[in-house]
Structure formats: C-alpha cells, structure tokens
C-alpha cells in the first residue's frame, strides 16, 4: 500500500540520535508529513555539508526505510557503510535533515488466516519493525526471525518491539548459532500456514525467497537498489521481473511479492 508524499523535500529537525549496537538510530520531527505505511521509505540528506566526504561524496540523497513513525516523529536506523551514512551518523539533535517521502509501496496483510513471519536481519530491521507494530495494531499474529553477524549487530533486534523475536547469529554469540533461514525452516515446519515478510542483505533475502518458493509459502520482500530520486524520475533503481523487463523499485516497490522475481539481485 502507498501513502502519498507531500510534493517537494522538506527541511526537518533531528530530535534524537543514538547508537544501537553496531547501528545508528536517528529521530526526526516530521509534523507536516503523513503517517507512512510499513515498508515505505524516505530519501534523506543532511541539510548542511552533504558532500565532501570520501571520494567527494555524497551528492544524492539516500533511501531509508522508516523504523517507527509516532505522532509526527520518524525514526531511521542505519549502519555506516559509506559517505552518506557516515554524514548522517554525525548528526545530532538540533541538526537538520532534508526529507522526501513517504515513498514506494509497503507490505500488505496476510490473507487466508495466515500468520505473519517477519524474517530478516542487519539493516533489514526497519521495515519489519514498523510492520510488526502495524500487525499488532491489527491483531494479526506475527513472529520475527532475525539473523545477525555478531552480538554488536544483534543489538539491532531490540529495535523490533511489537512481536516475539527469535535471533540467530553467524558466530553463535547471541541466540541460535546459524542463519535466519534455519529459524524460518523450523517455524514453517511447525506450521506452514504463514506469509513471510522479509528484508535484509541480498544473500539472506535470496535464501529466504528460495526457501519460501520451495515450500510454496507466500512472501513479500522489501528489496533495495541504488536510488537517485526515489519517485520514479531517474529509472535507476530497477530489478528484473518474471513478467519480463524491469520494474522501478522506488515506485513499484520496494516491497515486491516474491513470486514476481526469479532471484534477489546480488547488488543493485
């Protein structure tokens, strides 16, 4: 589902910034923005000194799913992976952000009395966290299965608060020693009547997609792609789809029915 965005980016105040394990959480006041729908995202840029980082970047805004949206306050979560997140990570309460959104199409509720299995990890947490809250509000049974590299990253699991969470880590330092797909396979063995909602690193997402496909379990994937605009203008954020050709993730996604793609692109 799509909530329309106000036309034009808006300058908003950062109201809070904190670390959550390996991640950074940024809060911004968005009094004029609508209530977004889980899975939607925003294009963000620091209002001051966006640029002049590594390799004289960033130049373009960056796409971020929202983590939570409460009473006109938006929160985002990210890891420092380049000049954009590095700059956003410098922001403190009182600094300002350029923000455009909400953008894209989010998740849709499970049908046929299925329960919701939220599978993902890493910076895939935000859309799942927002979705967990919405599902709880709708009284739809949901469970989250999250995978992380290590304990520092597993701290991110604490940001998903509205559903019971099972954690797996690659190094076994927290929760189960293994992958999200191990948790997911087990959960589906218990009871296959579920719709899977997944977001995370491409390889994890592809494993989830393959698992669900193999078991004929409906899945909705929140995908990522490099984006310049976020509103359909640049045609840069495409993924190949089964029906042929490409689809712009920013306007026709980022959430796609898993059945529409053959595989999750390695990088985009």
């Amino acid at each position, binding site marked *: 589902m799509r909530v*329309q965005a106000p*036309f*034009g*980016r808006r300058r908003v105040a950062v109201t809070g910034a904190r670390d959550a394990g390996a991640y950074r959480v940024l809060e911004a006041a968005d009094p004029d923005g609508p209530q977004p729908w889980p899975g939607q995202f925003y294009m963000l840029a620091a209002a001051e000194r966006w640029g002049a980082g590594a*390799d004289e970047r960033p130049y373009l805004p960056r796409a971020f799913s929202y983590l939570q949206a409460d009473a006109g306050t938006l929160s985002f979560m990210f890891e420092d992976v380049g000049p954009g997140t590095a700059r956003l990570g410098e922001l403190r309460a009182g600094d300002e952000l350029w923000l455009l959104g909400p953008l894209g199409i989010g998740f849709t509720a499970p049908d046929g009395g299925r329960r919701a299995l939220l599978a993902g990890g890493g910076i895939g947490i935000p859309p799942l966290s927002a979705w967990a809250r919405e599902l709880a509000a709708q009284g739809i049974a949901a469970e989250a299965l999250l995978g992380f590299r290590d304990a520092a990253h597993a701290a991110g699991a604490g940001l998903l608060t509205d559903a019971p969470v099972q954690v797996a880590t690659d190094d076994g330092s927290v929760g189960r020693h293994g992958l999200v797909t191990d948790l997911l396979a087990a959960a589906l063995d218990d009871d296959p009547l579920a719709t899977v909602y997944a977001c995370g690193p491409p390889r994890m997402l592809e494993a989830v997609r393959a698992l669900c496909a193999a078991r004929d379990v409906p899945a909705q994937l929140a995908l990522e792609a490099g984006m310049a605009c976020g509103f359909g203008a640049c045609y840069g954020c*495409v993924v190949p789809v089964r029906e042929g050709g490409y689809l*712009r993730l920013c306007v026709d996604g980022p959430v796609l029915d898993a059945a529409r793609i053959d595989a999750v692109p390695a990088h985009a």
Partner: protein
Amino acid sequence: MTTVDFCGLRLAHPVVNGSGTYDAIAARRVFGDALLASFPFSAFVSKTITLQPRAGNPPPRLWETPAGMINSIGLPNRGLAGYLEYDLPELAALPVPLITNVMGSTEAEVAALVEAVDARPEIAAIELNVSCPNVRTGLDIGADPASLGALVRAVRPLTGKPLIVKLTPNTADVAAVAQAAEAEGADAVSLINTLRAMALAPGSGEPWLGGGTGGLSGPAIRAVALAQVAAVARRVRIAIVGMGGITRGNHARDLLLAGASLVAVGTENFRDPIAASRICCELKSLQNAETPSTSVNEPRPQVEVDVNSADSP
C-alpha cells in the same frame, strides 16, 4: 518574470525539465494532485521515445560521482505505440505544453516517430535526441555535422511543430553541429546532454554499470555546459535550451546570459522534485535585481568574447 516566447510557444517562465529526468506520470502517483497544482516546469519534456519498446540497460544503472552522477539507463520506454496510447493522455493532462523527445537509430525510424508525433495536437513540440551517450547511433549522428544535417533535412519537412535538436557534448565542435541543425531548419537546439563516463566496481574492478559506460550529469558538468552553450550561441541564431548542472538560479542566469532562451533542470530534480520552482524563483529575483539585458525577452545577449578564438595566444 513575464512570459517567454519559445519557437512560438508562450511559456510562463524559462525553466523546463531535461528529458529523462522527470516522470510526471510516476510523480503524479507519488505526490498526487499537488504535482499539478504547483507544477515546476513551464513545459514538460518527455523521456526519449523510440519506435520499438526498450527495456533499458541491466542494473546497476547509477553511479555517484563528485558533485554529479553517471547514469546508464539505456532509454527504457514503451515504444511509440505505447507512448501514444498510455502516456500521452496523462501527459496531455499536465498544466503545461508537452514536448516529446524522440530518437531513432535510422532516418526512417526518426521519420516515423516525427510523423506520428506531428499528428498529435496534444504535443506542442518535438525534441530530437541525437545525443544520448547510451545509444551508439545517438552519439554518431549528433557528433558529426554532416550526418546530423542529413537527418534534420530528412525529418524537418514532416512536421510544422517546433523542432528542437538535442546536441551531444561528446564532440570536438558542438557549434558546428548546431549550425548544421540550423541550416536544415531546426527551430532550436538543446544542450548539453551527459558526458560519456565510466566507473569500476570498488571490489572487482569490473565496470560498475550494466551498460558498461554511461553519462555524467550534475554540477560537475556545469562549466562544460556553459562553454558549449556560449560557443553555440556565437554561431547560431535559433533558440537554445541550455542545461547542465543547474542547481540554483544563478546557474540558470549564466546559461541565459550565455545565449540560451530556456533552461532545463535535470539531475537536480532527483534531489528535490520541486527544485525547479526554487530555481525559477531565484532566477526571477536575480533578473529583477539586474539589468534588463538579462531578461529572457530581450534580444539574445552576447557574451562579449568569441569563444572560438578566445583561446588563441
């Protein structure tokens, strides 16, 4: 700012969009009617349309550069028939005149496109893309005055609508190409398109872009755009649509001073879908502050240097 006359079209102000940098149909879905209520451009330029549908280049299609970006989009579009059937009705509903940008790999293709577009009253003008660095033929035709001239000669008689030729910057003497377009009856030229560019993947060292190479745009190319617009303005009398790296009103002002009668905003739209409105306001206040000679309705001002000889010792 009083209205602007561009090849007989009366435009509310001199700021349009660069082809392929704004999808008004998608924007309408994302922003709703607010898009129409405060539409940022005085005319809307469509993405490049080809005779047959094109899927475009495989991803990745984008690479960010210092103060700019490379795109390797590859002209995805529904093809002429799809454009006329699905896109045109929605684009015709925009509050501004529609300029349709077309490109073909043969003279016959271009002729077919021009004839079909000419037949549609909803379309106010035609822009010929002979410059998109993402399609071989575009580069070749637009880089060579003779073949460009031949193409314009072939299609000029096919339409009474204003015919704009979009020039490639990837050439030795863009003014010579502009002169060929003028000589064959083009009503205007638009420039610059993107500069041929490339990026390698950080890890593998393989080309990053699915298309191999792409086109550089944004502030990084602004000074190149200004030089090319000034060079063209010295050698042709037809109207010029200037673009390349505009992010603020003074950049638009510079292109107008260099001889453009319209300016187009491209990459900056990506940073803010309503940026062109801000740029237009900034331009307006600059023009009010400055001498009338910067008003776009005055006869074209001449930058007081011959760009083609200024370089000699």
